[in-house]
């Protein structure tokens, strides 16, 4: 059970870490100073959650692991984040579309985790739910603003939603670890969340005058360590210093 809990915790932590890293790339390069600040806020929240989850994972792993050993000394095949989150940021529309698809999911997921039987995970959920609720609101507002803004913004956000759609399915895939955690009352029921998610997403897309895409296939594998070609370059950049001087403390 211990190993499944470790994997489950790492999945939550890797989502927060990889998304936080991608959002941090925008810092200093946003379309408007106010949104540069807003996106940095969301990145800070994600990274904050990542730290708590990585600390718990390190505890579960034992052998004097630490949050930084977790984050800076695992290779691509040992990372368990959703593929959706390692994709490149693209333009502001692509970044907003990803936030919207993921934040909406994360809101329903962490609402479930408020009742997790695992104290640590429940504590993280209680700490994070306020931030995550705000993120979902913020990104939904931006999807509506872009969808119902100009012709160009409508087209860009529609293309972004279409391009990312095949990467959204993995959020709802239950594998052995998810099942075990659900049975143990620790993890969430992704099928239940899927229904809520589709309802909320449809509503917001309507308000944004956007089409909800159809997909006959969804990409997956991130939760199981099978990644796209993007994660390796992200980790090479993120891990460089500690990999260069593994004994150093920073």
């Amino acid at each position: 059970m211990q190993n499944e809990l470790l994997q489950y915790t790492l999945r939550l932590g890797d989502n927060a870490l990889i998304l936080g890293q991608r959002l941090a790339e925008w810092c200093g390069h946003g379309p408007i100073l106010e949104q540069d600040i807003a996106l940095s806020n969301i990145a800070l929240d994600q990274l904050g959650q990542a730290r708590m989850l990585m600390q718990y994972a390190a505890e579960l792993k034992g052998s004097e692991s630490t949050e930084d050993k977790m984050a800076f000394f695992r290779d691509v095949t040992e990372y368990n984040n959703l593929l959706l989150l390692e994709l490149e940021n693209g333009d502001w529309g692509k970044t907003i579309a990803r936030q919207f698809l993921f934040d909406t999911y994360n809101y329903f997921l962490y609402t479930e985790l408020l009742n997790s039987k695992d104290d640590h995970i429940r504590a993280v959920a209680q700490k994070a739910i306020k931030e995550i609720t705000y993120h979902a609101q913020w990104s939904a507002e931006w999807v509506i603003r872009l969808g119902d803004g100009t012709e160009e913004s409508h087209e860009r956000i529609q293309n972004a939603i279409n391009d990312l759609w095949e990467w959204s399915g993995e959020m709802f895939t239950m594998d052995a670890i998810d099942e075990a955690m659900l049975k143990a009352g620790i993890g969430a029921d992704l099928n239940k969340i899927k229904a809520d998610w589709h309802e909320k997403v449809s509503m917001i897309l309507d308000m944004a005058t956007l089409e909800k895409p159809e997909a006959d296939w969804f990409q997956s594998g991130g939760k199981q360590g099978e990644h796209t070609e993007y994660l390796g370059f992200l980790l090479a950049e993120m891990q460089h210093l500690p990999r260069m001087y593994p004994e150093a403390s920073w």
Partner: protein
Amino acid sequence: MTKEMNLEERFQQYVDAENKVEPKDWMPEKYRKTLIRQISQHAHSEVVGMLPEANWITRAPSLRRKVALLAKVQDEAGHGLYLYSAAETLAADRMDMVEDLLSGKAKYSSIFNYPTPTWADIGAIGWLVDGAAIANQVMLCRTSYGPYARAMVKICKEESFHQRQGYEITMTLAQGSPVQKQMAQDALNRWWWPSLMMFGPTDDASPNSAQSMKWKIKRKSNDELRQEFIDKTVPQAEFLGLTIPDKDLKWNEETGHYEHGEIDWEEFYNVIKGNGKCNKQRLIARNKAHDDGAWVREAANAYAEKEAERRKKKSSAA
């Protein structure tokens, strides 16, 4: 004696009596112009100043450092916002100010035209660059123009926190492995002289600082501020076992100050003229962010107008 002169005299007495000038008060046009130039330049410096530090957010060597650095750079964006708003109270238009930055017409602090090739530069920037900025800006908290003074009080509080963070990073490196200590020394070697240049030309070569002193926009001279910074910072370096890269540096018992070598003013003017390693790179990055964001700003405006339209219809229908 024109009415104008009379007003200017009364304004001078008002300022001499340490009163705050507020947006709707009368002020000499030159006072307003000087302030807009100074405040917008300060705002531009905060915004461009994000880039050399943002350069390391994705490569910060620990999660704690990554969060702290991202939060710091975000603060600087916030400072930029405070200052643009303060300038707007003087009837300056934000888009015009941003256009002037992007076209290269408006200046920003040339310290940000130096590159950050290593993580130790992030420590040096916090410790030395924020240190010099604070020394320059502390007096601005008592500047005569109200909105600028109030903005500066908030900014200075955050800057001193940033400065402690920078020193702490440098300390961790200086007390770390030999390679880390060398990295810290190397960053000190590169950032020491440029930080001294942040205080501007020597007093005898600073034309418009006299008028600013008169209007209590500026309270101390460049050389005074620079000397204070040196006297404070040299012991901090020695405490870390780092060497200041100035062979003429010597403690003078009588004066109670450090004597220091001549600043390379040719390099100072050269970077101001646009020849630093990152002058072009910084403006290219800011222009790219602005151009790539155009469709987003247009969409936000278009949506806001539609919303206003809808609200008007709803209220008139109610």
